[in-house]
């Protein structure tokens, strides 16, 4: 879960070789090139957003606009709603995830593997697709709402306003908490617990004094990540028509008031501040965790306790309950994609294949656009990530910390902020020789997606490269291979799996990206799938086609996740990133 690349000790330069041993010119060129790319596509857009919000026309820095934010009741309400929703998502996510994590980590029972696999499934369903589906389950005329009304005579609409956003996001994001906590619990050294027991701690006291402190850092990191992602997600509020939250307000200011509206940028700055605070806190907590694992070298010993009989039944029913709730959106979106008439009945009363005909035959461009943008972003991202990781680990150049920080920066940047920054920088530029703005070409999506997901790929490349010992390159060099050939023939084949896994991660996360997309998109012809889902959902009879595109999104993400896991050779890697 650690965010950022741990520093790599630089090999001491052999004495008497001079500056060439400390600074490698090839590496320096590569480093400058990478820095230049990142400066244009990461630093500049963000600087533009900050500048618009914090700099006066005469060049002086001002906090006046920011102060105005805190005087506007609508913005205060939006801030409060965003924070409240994030907190509730974490709270509900915790309630769903912790018992599940504890069961899976500590006990063995029939169906345990299935539970672990199923619990990652919510992540393959983009939350805004989940929101469409959940309306049909928990909404005013949803299946379960009707069922409860018919059985007990009470009518509860779970999907109303902010509550709906919280429900949809909690069901989507709780696996982040589950996976981090389950992994941490499995790593807790049993001998520590035994020591605790020997010293007389049992039951609640053992849990409180020994296990909690060991698992808490992982939980906090998972919870903070969930919080950041929940605040970042503007697709769910949009689908549920909740506008008084930070992300939607930033978007609405920029699109309906105009690109020169200061308030839009100020909201972006507030979002970045929240995000940076959470990521910073998470890094700090994880860094402090080291003490726990230093105690012993060996990993957790002992097999999980086997549950049989009533214990197993109880464990399994808890799992079924939690996972059942979190898999409802998947079922609903599949049913919706085939439904023609679904009005106040438990299940549709008429079915059709027409929605699939619409998205594959009549309007296939959304899927084609998504594949084009995401594959291009993945290719570009992989090259930049691999080169950056190589420099960070093996490079003999100064300033690696800067490169690392800049490349990892997007992880703390909300999608809508990246979109707004790109608009501000690239909209006024035109393609050479034409009147067309740079921001209205398809390439803008490729670049934005690449920037947004670069940290994922960087981490994957870094992990892969970490496993290749530097002496292999030295051996190749001794055998007479120039360094580039050594890289190509020795290092590259060894890291290819991990690096490709990083590319697949860029691909799947870009394929369902919404926040940046809706900010950048203009012509429907260039729209990728995620924005098309939104457009379809904006007409009274379009939800079926939106659901069908949602099913396509699920398939893309599921296949991509499987591939990423296979390629990286580590289970669950795609999710724990």
């Amino acid at each position: 879960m650690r965010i950022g690349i741990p520093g790599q000790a630089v090999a001491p330069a052999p004495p008497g070789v001079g500056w060439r041993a400390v600074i490698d010119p090839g590496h320096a060129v590569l480093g400058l090139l990478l820095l230049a790319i990142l400066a244009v596509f990461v630093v500049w857009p963000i600087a533009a957003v900050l500048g618009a919000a914090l700099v006066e026309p005469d060049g002086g820095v001002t906090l006046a606009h920011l102060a105005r934010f805190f005087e506007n009741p609508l913005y205060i309400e939006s801030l409060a709603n965003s924070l409240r929703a994030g907190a509730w998502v974490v709270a509900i996510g915790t309630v769903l995830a912790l018992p599940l994590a504890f069961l899976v980590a500590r006990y063995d029972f029939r169906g345990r593997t299935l539970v672990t696999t199923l619990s990652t499934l919510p992540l393959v369903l983009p939350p805004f697709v989940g929101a469409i589906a959940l309306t049909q389950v928990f909404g005013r005329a949803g299946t379960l709402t009707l069922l409860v009304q018919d059985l007990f005579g009470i009518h509860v609409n779970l999907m109303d306003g902010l509550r709906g956003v919280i429900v949809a996001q909690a069901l989507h994001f709780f696996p982040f908490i589950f996976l981090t906590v389950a992994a941490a619990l499995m790593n807790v050294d049993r001998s520590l617990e035994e020591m605790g027991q020997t010293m007389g701690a049992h039951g609640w006291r053992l849990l409180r004094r020994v296990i909690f402190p060991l698992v808490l850092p992982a939980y906090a990191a998972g919870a903070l990540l969930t919080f950041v992602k929940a605040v970042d997600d503007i697709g769910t509020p949009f689908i549920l028509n909740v506008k008084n939250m930070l992300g939607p307000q930033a978007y609405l200011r920029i699109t309906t008031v105009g690109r020169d509206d200061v308030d839009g940028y100020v909201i972006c700055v507030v979002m970045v501040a929240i995000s940076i605070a959470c990521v910073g806190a998470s890094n700090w907590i994880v860094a402090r965790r080291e003490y726990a694992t230093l105690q012993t070298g060996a990993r957790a010993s002992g097999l999980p306790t086997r549950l049989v009989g009533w214990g197993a039944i109880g464990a399994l029913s808890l799992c079924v309950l939690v996972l059942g709730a979190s898999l409802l959106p998947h079922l609903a979106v599949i049913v919706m994609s085939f439904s023609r008439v679904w009005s106040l009945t438990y299940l549709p009363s008429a079915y059709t294949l027409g929605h699939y005909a619409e998205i594959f035959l009549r309007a296939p461009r959304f899927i084609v656009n998504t594949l084009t943008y995401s594959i291009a972003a993945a290719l570009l991202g992989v090259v930049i990530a691999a080169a950056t990781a190589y420099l960070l680990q093996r490079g003999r150049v100064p300033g690696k910390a800067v490169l690392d920080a800049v490349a990892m920066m997007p992880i703390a940047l909300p999608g809508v902020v990246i979109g707004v920054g790109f608009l501000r920088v690239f909209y006024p530029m035109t393609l050479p020789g034409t009147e067309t703005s740079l921001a209205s070409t398809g390439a803008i999506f490729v670049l934005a997606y690449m920037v947004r997901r670069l940290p994922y790929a960087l981490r994957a490349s870094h992990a892969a490269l970490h496993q290749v010992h530097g002496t292999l390159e030295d051996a190749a060099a001794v055998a007479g291979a120039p360094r580039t050939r050594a890289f190509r023939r020795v290092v590259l084949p060894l890291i290819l799996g991990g690096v490709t896994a990083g590319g697949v991660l860029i691909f799947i996360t870009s394929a369902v990206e919404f926040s940046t997309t809706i900010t950048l998109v203009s012509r429907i012809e260039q729209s990728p799938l995620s924005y098309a889902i939104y457009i379809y959902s904006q007409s009274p009879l379009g939800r079926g086609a939106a659901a069908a595109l949602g099913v396509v999104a699920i398939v893309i993400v599921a296949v991509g996740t499987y591939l990423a896991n296979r390629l990286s050779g580590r289970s669950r890697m795609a999710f724990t990133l």
Partner: protein
Amino acid sequence: MIADTVRSLARLLLPGLLLIAVTVAPSPTFAQTQQVVVLTSFPKELFDAYKAGFERAHAGWRMEVVPKPTSAAITHVRERAARPDVDVFWASAVDAFIFLKSNNMLERYTLPADLRRGIPDQVAGFPVNDADGFFHGFAVSGYGIMWNRTYLTRYRLPAPKEWEDLIRPEYLGHLVISAPSRSGTTHLTVETILQGYGWQRGWELLLRMGGSMGAITERSFGVPEAVIAGQYGIGIVIDFFGLSAIASGQPVDFVYPSVTSIVPANVAIIRNAPNPEGARRFINYLLSDDGQRLLFRPEIARLPVRTALYREAPRGMPNPFTMKAGVQFNADLSASRYQVTNRMFDQIITFRHAELRRAWEAIYRAERAVEAARAAGRDMTETERMLTQARASASYVHVSERMAAEVSGVMERDAAYRSAKEREWGEVARASYVRAAQLAAAAEEAARRR
């Protein structure tokens, strides 16, 4: 060594750059001559049909669509007025076109004579085209009531026919409308009711309907969506929402009340459009027989302006040019108090919905209690009087028609005045509704007392 690095880097980067090039190249940006870019607030069903139709009718031409809600679309045009990147503005709300026209953002266009023939000047008293030729009506719409049959059966409710039917007590919580300040079509519906029933009675009617609203949606399509899904039973909508839902087999019905008005949806060319030839071709196609026929498609279900086509109209499709609209819609009157109507609706209904609903809920409960007491032979004259006061208080119209006309102009110019007025209206409304609820509660208690 540097050259070596650069070479291997180039080899690595090349595939990515190539792919980007592939991504950019087929996008229309390099083929600017043979295209038209249409900015529209219409749903996908509509613009997709016209994109396909236009590209079929004009080989070698491309139609690009920029979909935006009307308010965002106006911002789009305004921000790029110096260097427009769209050619055609295509939307419902007449006021959006009037705004663009008065800000010099539209280009005058005279239809070819053969197209102009066959399009009447007026529909039910409303001009089809802008008198100065800046925008042109391409379809007309009326307003009405749409309901979900399954829903009405489930809750044992009768189907409505007229606006007055919507104030029946049993509809409490089952109605849905969108806010007129967010939806141009709802604004016209509200104005129709105000013109059809008169200012005072119209607002009283709206306030009683407001008390029965289960929800007031932000977006106009949210109303048909809620009715189709069965979230609410009865919605106030523009006709094509109802007609297209019926055509696609949803369990819904639609009716035009006798007090309705009929207005056109429009199209215009943007001033300094990059592709004026494409813009003209698009408008000509839209108004041609072939283009107009697309409106009859079940998923679109709008009413063409070429009257001759009604001979081929699908069953159930009304002909607005022979319909007698109950209201001769006065567009000038509507425009002159546009701000007041929308702001008033927001202040006294949308933002005070909770209090208004609570008041009417209490009144209907008290009415039932009084009814029961009277059936038991008790004298309810005094209690009746309290109830009458409660009803008056829950449908109190603070702003007279004359006052509305007076403040309208100032409100548009002076933001401080506007917010002061808005606060005043909101406060008066809240106080009236709270009083109404108290009176009704007292009446109910009196009726239940032995």
